[in-house]
């Protein structure tokens, strides 16, 4: 436990862990992609096997510890019950497992060639940060807005305060020669039906919040939505805003493969993943978080994760071209910029600005039931597949917003829109493109059983 003592004594044990941001910027971008799973298991042995398999995958990878829902909401008693009764958790309980156990999970796997990130979804994350820091884990994800509104009942003001405190604690790793990295989750929000301009704005504003609290290694997320052209506009807008305004040089962009209702068929799931990989390379994004063929049903196995990583990486390499700048000026950029400026003008302090923004309805996430969300904005998918505003509520984008004719969204419309992407990809060509079966090595899609890893 020399690592632990070392952090307590304020010095890194052995070589400091690599800066996640710097690593991704070196390995990704310019047509290359770092790929990452959303992987988390309750059992430490299985978690370690998953990390080992991720590292060994035929792709440039980084590792993930996704935490379980009980840890996210601070119900450690329920974690104990699950561990005692042998009930599977939906992620790794980093606060409950003794630090020695997690150190053993990481030992020899995490190194200078394989950084590991912690992903959770908690608006009250102080225990998680403490557990991470005890283990020299210097990469994570979150945000005062994006880890609050989609994740429960914590008031936004509390979430903002909690995230300020956590950032203040986390940057202290810099004092002992370790660079802490933080990724915004703001490019995802509820996973679906949030118009891209607002995803870009929230992701960017959370990055500004992190920078203001002293973070120097930051990534901004964007989750694939419904239309490839609009998505390219959005990622390009996110890069442009960051280049123009983010006061930090060490930043990169991470794309999430679709975060809404996922296709049920193998060809649909892989088709959507391929499209996310192409979005990432053509916009110059450095990193991609994959989804698997099991997404629509259950927590994926290690093998399913590895197949998705390799498939996404191969698709990216085959795309054969890097970033193009066709979409530098777009309606998505104009809207995102208007939202960002309106929020920045509310207060010099980003935390207060974000709180006021939601109070005024300057940010308003469609279909989000959280009491601190204004709940007036509505969205829909137009006949061409573009995600648009049906109602802009009090968003400061009058005259700029891309709107269709004003319309009421009934229940049937909402259901169609929720299942739009799934239906489109499940109905798509049954045949994967000719190279794919061989890329999806050993998968059911080509007849044989996936290779399984045992812990």
């Amino acid at each position, binding site marked *: 436990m020399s690592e632990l003592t070392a952090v307590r004594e304020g010095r890194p044990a052995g070589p400091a862990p690599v800066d996640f941001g710097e690593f991704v910027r070196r390995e990704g971008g310019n047509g290359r992609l770092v790929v990452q799973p959303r992987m988390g298991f309750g059992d430490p042995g299985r978690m370690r096997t998953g990390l080992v398999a991720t590292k060994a995958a035929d792709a440039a990878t980084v590792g993930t510890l996704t935490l379980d829902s009980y840890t996210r909401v601070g119900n450690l008693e329920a974690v104990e019950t*699950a561990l005692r*009764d042998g009930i599977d*958790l939906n992620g790794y309980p980093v606060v409950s497992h003794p630090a020695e156990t997690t150190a053993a999970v990481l030992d020899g796997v995490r190194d200078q060639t394989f950084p590991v990130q912690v992903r959770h979804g908690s608006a009250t994350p102080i225990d998680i940060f403490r557990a991470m820091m005890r283990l020299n884990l210097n990469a994570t994800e979150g945000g005062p807005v994006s880890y609050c509104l989609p994740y429960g009942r914590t008031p936004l003001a509390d979430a903002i305060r909690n995230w300020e405190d956590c950032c203040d604690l986390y940057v202290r790793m810099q004092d002992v020669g370790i660079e802490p990295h933080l990724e915004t989750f703001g490019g995802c929000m*509820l996973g*679906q039906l949030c118009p891209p301009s607002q995803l870009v704005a929230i992701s960017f504003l959370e990055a500004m919040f992190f920078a203001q609290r002293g973070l120097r290694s930051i990534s901004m997320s964007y989750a694939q939505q419904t239309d490839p052209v609009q998505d390219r506009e959005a990622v390009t807008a996110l890069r442009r805003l960051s280049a123009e305004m983010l006061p930090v040089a060490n930043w990169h962009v991470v794309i999430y493969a679709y975060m809404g209702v996922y296709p049920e068929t193998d060809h649909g799931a892989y088709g959507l993943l391929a499209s996310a990989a192409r979005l990432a390379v053509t916009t110059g994004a450095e990193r991609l978080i994959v989804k698997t063929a099991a997404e629509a*049903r*259950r927590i994926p196995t290690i093998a399913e994760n590895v197949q998705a990583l390799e498939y996404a990486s191969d698709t990216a390499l085959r795309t054969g071209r890097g970033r193009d700048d066709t979409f530098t000026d777009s309606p998505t950029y104009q809207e995102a910029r208007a939202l960002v400026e309106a929020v920045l003008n509310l207060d010099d302090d980003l935390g207060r600005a974000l709180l006021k923004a939601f109070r005024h309805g300057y940010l308003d996430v469609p279909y*989000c039931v959280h009491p601190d969300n204004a709940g007036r904005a509505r969205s829909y998918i137009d006949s061409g597949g573009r995600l648009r505003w049906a109602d802009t509520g009090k968003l400061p984008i009058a005259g700029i917003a891309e709107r269709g004719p004003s319309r009421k969204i009934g229940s049937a419309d909402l259901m169609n829109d929720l299942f739009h992407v799934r239906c489109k990809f499940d109905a798509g060509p049954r045949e994967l493109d000719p190279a794919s079966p061989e890329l999806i090595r050993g998968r059911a899609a080509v007849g044989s059983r996936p290779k399984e890893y045992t812990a």
Partner: protein
Amino acid sequence: MHDLSARGTESFVERSKGTVIVTTLASDSHTWNLVFLQVLIEECGYDVVNLGPCVPDELLVSECRDRNPEMIVISSVNGHGYQDGMRVIGQLRDAAPLAATPIVIGGKLGTDGGEGASRTHELMAAGFDAVFEDGQDPIAAFHAFLATLPSEPRRQAVEAADHARVSA
């Protein structure tokens, strides 16, 4: 929590079949499933109270006890539904008016896609009236279950005799 009722926008007169509570459990933050069920149940003629995400056990019990609904519909998709459901069902049944209230649970209740579902038996034995796991056409089964419920609210006699409901 905000009301996303789809019926709020249309204007029509109709006799409500009573109130149904739609909720998830303490560890689950998913809400699209709740919106989906709310809309579906409203379209079957009920008023729906949607308790929103991550409902703490105590809040769940107190809301259900105080509102004494026709039915309680629990949805969980994050993989902890079995464990959370087993924990709360006893507390709900022990709350005075809920001993015989129809209480159902559905969604993705474990992390395994419902394949080894001995869960259903255990949940029923613990006090649920029905379990609707994905993979077994849960929506059709749920409609069939709804059809077995009385079409008049239980407490209608107590309330105004003929309470035509106007929503505008």
